[in-house]
């Protein structure tokens, strides 16, 4: 009996060792990759942000927090921050509300249409962002663009979509929402399907309307999904770059210059890597604070 027990433990111990070895061998390449391309750059950019790090200059002296001071006193930083917050606020709100409404609508459709509609609405998500930007550049053309023609039929416009400082960010928001709403729809659809149907049946028996059910069953039970959508969309929206780079280059003037565009120009146009890294750290701090606030106030206090 004792012998058997010993054999069992020895065998178990060997298996554990084998498992550990397998885990190490399996994880090592990805950990090396993760360290080189994620962990190391994070700390290295912090180091760079404390230096006068001009790519062209061989000397890279330590300058303490001067780059952060420069960023916080530079008016372009505040313009970029304002544009980013403006973009994020509307983008996240629209993408969350529209994603939810479309998901509810698609969910209410006949089984056969659900897959079709899901495919149609999700298609822009898998389309190249640059291709979508170029397409919208044509749609937004002020004199001969399709969009101005269409809204002209109902007596609106024409608007200088991308050439006006007032219209440029709303134009980018419209394009970004069109491109990404399919993603939030899919997330909400997944959330909706996890809500037990008995709740709706009970409400129906009590004579509740569909709108009442939506407000009092769907919405509260989707709170964790909504939190996920809002947090991930907000983090993504603070990093908005491709749309701005391709469609406007940050213009007209600095009207659509966002924080990541500001980082890009500082780092890769003017080659001031120290300053660019400092702005990147400020962006990180802003996103972190907003995310923590969101988690505190939107976190669900119940499970179902």
């Amino acid at each position: 009996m004792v012998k058997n027990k010993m054999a069992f433990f020895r065998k178990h111990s060997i298996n554990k060792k084998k498992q550990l070895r397998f885990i190490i061998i399996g994880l090592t390449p990805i950990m090396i990759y993760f360290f080189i391309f994620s962990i190391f750059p994070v700390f290295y950019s912090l180091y760079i942000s404390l230096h006068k790090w001009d790519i062209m200059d061989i000397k890279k002296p330590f300058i303490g927090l001067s780059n952060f001071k420069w960023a916080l006193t530079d008016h372009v930083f505040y313009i970029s921050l304002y544009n980013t917050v403006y973009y994020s606020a509307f983008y996240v709100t629209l993408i969350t509300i529209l994603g939810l409404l479309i998901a509810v609508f698609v969910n209410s459709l006949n089984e056969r249409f659900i897959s079709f509609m899901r495919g149609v609405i999700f298609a822009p998500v898998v389309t190249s962002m640059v291709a979508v930007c170029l397409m919208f550049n044509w749609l937004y053309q002020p004199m001969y663009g399709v969009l101005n023609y269409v809204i002209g039929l109902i007596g609106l416009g024409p608007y200088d979509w991308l050439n006006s400082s007032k219209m440029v960010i709303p134009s980018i928001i419209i394009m970004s929402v069109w491109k990404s709403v399919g993603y939030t729809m899919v997330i909400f659809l997944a959330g909706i399907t996890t809500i037990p149907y008995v709740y709706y049946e009970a409400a129906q028996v009590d004579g509740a309307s569909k709108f009442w059910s939506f407000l009092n069953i769907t919405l509260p039970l989707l709170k964790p999904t909504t939190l996920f959508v809002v947090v991930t969309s907000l983090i993504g929206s603070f990093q908005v770059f491709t749309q701005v780079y391709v469609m406007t280059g940050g213009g007209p003037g600095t009207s659509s210059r966002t924080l990541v565009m500001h980082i890009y120009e500082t780092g890769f146009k003017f080659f001031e890597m120290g300053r660019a890294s400092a702005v990147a750290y400020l962006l990180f701090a802003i996103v972190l604070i907003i995310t923590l606030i969101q988690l505190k106030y939107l976190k669900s206090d119940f499970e179902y």
Partner: protein
Amino acid sequence: MKRLLVFLLVFIMVSSIAACGSATNSTSDKTASGAAVTASSGGGEKAPEIDNSKANKPVHLKFMSHTYKPWNDVLTKQAAAFQKENPNVTIEYTTVEHKDLNTKFMTALASGTAPHIMGVYGPWMEGLVKNKWIAPAPDFVEADIKANTVEVAGQSATYDGKIYGYIQHIGIPTPIINERIYQEAGLQIPTTYDELLAANEKLDKKDGNGKLTQAGTTLSAKKDGSWNVIHWSSILKSYGGKIISDDKTKAAFNTPEGLQATKVYAKLTHANFIDNAFTLEKSAMEWNGPWTKAFYQQNNPNLKYKAIAPLKGPAKQVTTMYAWFWTVNANVPADEQEWAWKFNMYISNDKNYLDLCKEIGFISFRKANLEDQQYVSDPWIKAFGNALNNAEIYYDKIPNWEKVDVAIGEELERMNVGEQTPEQTLANAEKKVNEILANK
């Protein structure tokens, strides 16, 4: 377990050392002397004769420029011909999108992977020279440039008395008119800004809703590629203004002349009009470089166009220009540098550069080409060649010109879309430029 961890540690260390080692090798041997290579044929100064001990040493040259397919095709052929003449040399030609090129060079230079030959934009040269990224031309190249090219070619590539490259191409935007539109309107070709503004009053046409359907002139309104600054600076200089003070310490454009010029520029942009309006015959004039001929022919073969002389302003008749240069990486071994200069000299010699000009529509900077009757008798080439006599480099040779350019470009862009007046534009741009110059 321990053995496995030790193995992984050793593996990582060895990989790192190997990577460092290869990087070191690539930049070593800087002191090697290469007493020369094959004399390049095709006219111009002769290169020194070959040192037989090094003649057959295999050399692999990396050569990089921005992407413009017709031009890239010609250079690819010339590189192949050079390799045929010099069998020990192989050339690897890479092209990068125009707007990404500077970033590519700077990151490559910083990481020690930059090519031997780099096609760089004039305003980048100051920083590259100051930080010793590019090499001064050897005597045989300097002699060729001084003896066989127009004065501006040497001047524009000279920093601290040394020449740093061959001109790759000259960007000289001169007015181009749509002959049909001018003829139909019964208008004379304008020679001054006043005449142009008067002509535009007839040529700007709007429909019943006030929508512009034809523009008299469409200058570049956006900051992309510095074009709005280049166009604005032509007018500024014609009106007697300048961008930066002579001592290069402050902005010098917020003056009565600058304001007058900026108001004229604002009238000539039409920022919200369609792209390529001139090619589509919706605009009677644009300012562009000689290479646009190929673009017109490709996109609208029926377009009747003509390049005319730069317009006269109250102060002078001038058009601003820029140049790109073929430069050589200062951090590659000396013998490879020498081969790189040889190749630069080869593609820039009388014959090859003339071939390129004829194929692409560039304006040659070589004296012999400008005396080639067949080449200069073409009215298009003649107009641009004549414009060279009234050309001034638009940028100032300061290390942070790129920032100055972007600052002015952004403010002009804001004015062009109606966000601010010319007065506000100059005041805002002046403030930004002074800040940039103060923080050298």
